[in-house]
């Protein structure tokens, strides 16, 4: 492998990693606050793509409006899921909440089959969903990179900066961080915890929609199970980075994206096992450093 192909793969890996990071943030924020693995997050991601798709195809929105519309609707969907399915179980055993989350995930997937049809839909610029200029190839010497890759990286960077600003420099962010430490004490401080949790779900789901749209531009086939594998991988990314930590989710997302593309690039015959690498990374990580790269160890209470 020469330098050129390496760079080519590396840039590709970065854009994939960026999308994983966006989804992983949704997992990590919810886990940080509620200690709940939001299994349905990958399916929220799928719905984000479908909303954008239908906004253009059925409502004839211009692409940028469709994308913004999708982000808002997906955010509302996330908040609705939290309100209906997770809030009543706030004080239930954690396993019950996890089972419910699995149920919500299956509900969303199968509802998508009923509502949107099981056949794959095409999310490509030829059907007018977004401008074809996004796919223009830029040349750097012998390396050819589509504009979309830079766009993806730019969007990811922008979104992450806004997110970090919200979490570390606003009152809402302060409340989020407080809830993740101790929800009862935060309530006693006069914070409306339920509203903050809703807000967290909205941010996470909105980011999933952003990730979903970027994903669909990269892999333009959408079907009701699109989000399953990227969702699981993003969750793994969140664990690898240290679940509960936003910076960890970013690091984990990029690590996973780069590892996945690079392993296949170096050992093409392993391509069939592509999806198993993530699980292997997860297992190794859980065994040797269960708290992840940036996670903090929580001592077991007796």
């Amino acid at each position, binding site marked *: 492998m020469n330098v050129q192909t390496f760079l080519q793969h590396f840039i590709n890996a970065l854009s994939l990693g960026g999308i994983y990071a966006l989804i992983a943030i949704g997992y990590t924020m919810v886990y940080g606050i509620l200690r709940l*693995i939001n299994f349905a997050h990958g399916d929220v991601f799928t719905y984000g793509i479908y909303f954008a798709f239908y906004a253009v195809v059925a409502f004839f929105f211009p692409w940028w409006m469709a994308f913004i519309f999708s982000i808002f609707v997906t955010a509302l969907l996330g908040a609705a899921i939290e309100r209906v*399915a997770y809030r*009543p*179980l706030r004080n*239930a055993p*954690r*396993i*019950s909440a*996890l*089972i*419910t989350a*699995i*149920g*919500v995930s*299956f*509900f969303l*997937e*199968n*509802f998508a*089959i*009923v509502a949107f049809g*099981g056949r794959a839909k095409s999310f490509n610029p030829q059907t007018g969903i977004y401008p074809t200029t996004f796919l223009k190839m830029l040349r750097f010497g012998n390396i050819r990179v589509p504009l979309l890759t830079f766009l993806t990286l730019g969007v990811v960077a922008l979104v992450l900066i806004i997110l970090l600003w919200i979490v570390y420099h606003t009152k809402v962010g302060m409340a989020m961080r407080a809830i993740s430490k101790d929800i009862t004490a935060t309530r006693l401080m006069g914070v409306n915890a339920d509203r903050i949790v809703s807000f967290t779900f909205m941010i996470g789901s909105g980011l999933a929609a952003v990730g979903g749209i970027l994903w669909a531009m990269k892999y333009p086939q959408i079907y009701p199970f699109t989000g399953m594998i990227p969702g*699981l991988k993003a*969750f*793994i990314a969140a*664990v690898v980075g240290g679940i509960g930590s936003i910076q960890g989710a970013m690091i984990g997302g990029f690590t996973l994206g780069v590892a996945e593309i690079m392993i296949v690039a170096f050992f093409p015959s392993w391509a*069939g*096992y592509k*999806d*198993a690498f*993530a*699980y*292997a990374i*997860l*297992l190794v990580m*859980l*065994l040797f450093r*269960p708290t992840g790269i940036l996670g903090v160890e929580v001592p*077991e209470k*007796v």
Partner: protein
Amino acid sequence: MQRKTLSTKTQFFLTLFLVLGIWFLLFLAKNNASEYVILILNLIAINVIFATTLTFINGITGIFSLGHAGFIAIGAYVSSLLTLPIEQKEMSFLIKPLIYPLNKVEMSFFPACIIAGLVSALFGYIVAAPSLRLIGDYLAIATLGLGETIRIIANNTWSITNGALGLKAIPPYTNLWWTWGWAFVTVLVIASLVKSSYGRALKAIREDSLAAKAMGINVFSHQVMSFVLGSFFAGIGGALWAHLITTIDPKSFMFVKTFEILIMTVLGGLGSISGAIIGAAIYTVGLEFLRVLEAPFSIGSITFPGIPGMRMVVLSLLLILLMLFWRRGIMGRRELSWDGLYNLLRRIRFSSRGDRA
């Protein structure tokens, strides 16, 4: 009113009568029922095996494992590879020929089942050691990943599993005797284990593993044992299932499989063996009744086409609603027992006699 207990002897005979009764009913079904009903009866027994093992691992021991489909896959593949006729193997493996010892083997069903269970248990053992060091939802995710990994491996090892093409024309050895016999053995073994001191240790681990450890229970080895036993019977269930359906491919063992079993156990009550049996039966029969939803229906002269996928929507809603409003399921953590039944009958008799009791 005082609770009365029946003597062990009476209980034994009651159980014997129950088993003989079921045996007689199956005998009748085998000779008289339609093929469709027999298929459903077979599926009930196989699902009882799956649900009981998952309850044993999840509900009794408290290891929240989501990798059940992986063990079922191993059982199904191993047994099918052992029983497939040699000529059929040569015909099926188009892309790459089957590797050496397997392409010369053709076994009868029973030893194939046992080997399938043992291989599955071996995998369970290998998997248990690393994953049981994790707790709670981490364990769930890790086992989910392992189950999926087994499926991905099956999808890629063309010279063993025939990859995505899967195996077809598996001899249809499964019949009512095999399925119900194995279901009986599974329930018997697991129920007796749960009743023994071993089972009490498992429940102690479920309630509080630290306290159990303090009481001198070797938490890790108990959990591993439970996991291995569960995967053994799950493997056998997989073998029965493969020889009932007669074609398998990696897609049959997606996470949905685990999800279905999870609904059965939650419906029956996570933590109750009799609940698992009831849950499996209701689920299997209910799924058939729900076919109405996917069939075309007509109101007046207008005919609506059936909506494919509607059944799964209903099922997933059912799981969510169960968790929200009826978390303990049908049985909770209680078990059906002759004592319970006896006392229930006595109570009914006394209350019908009025207040004299």
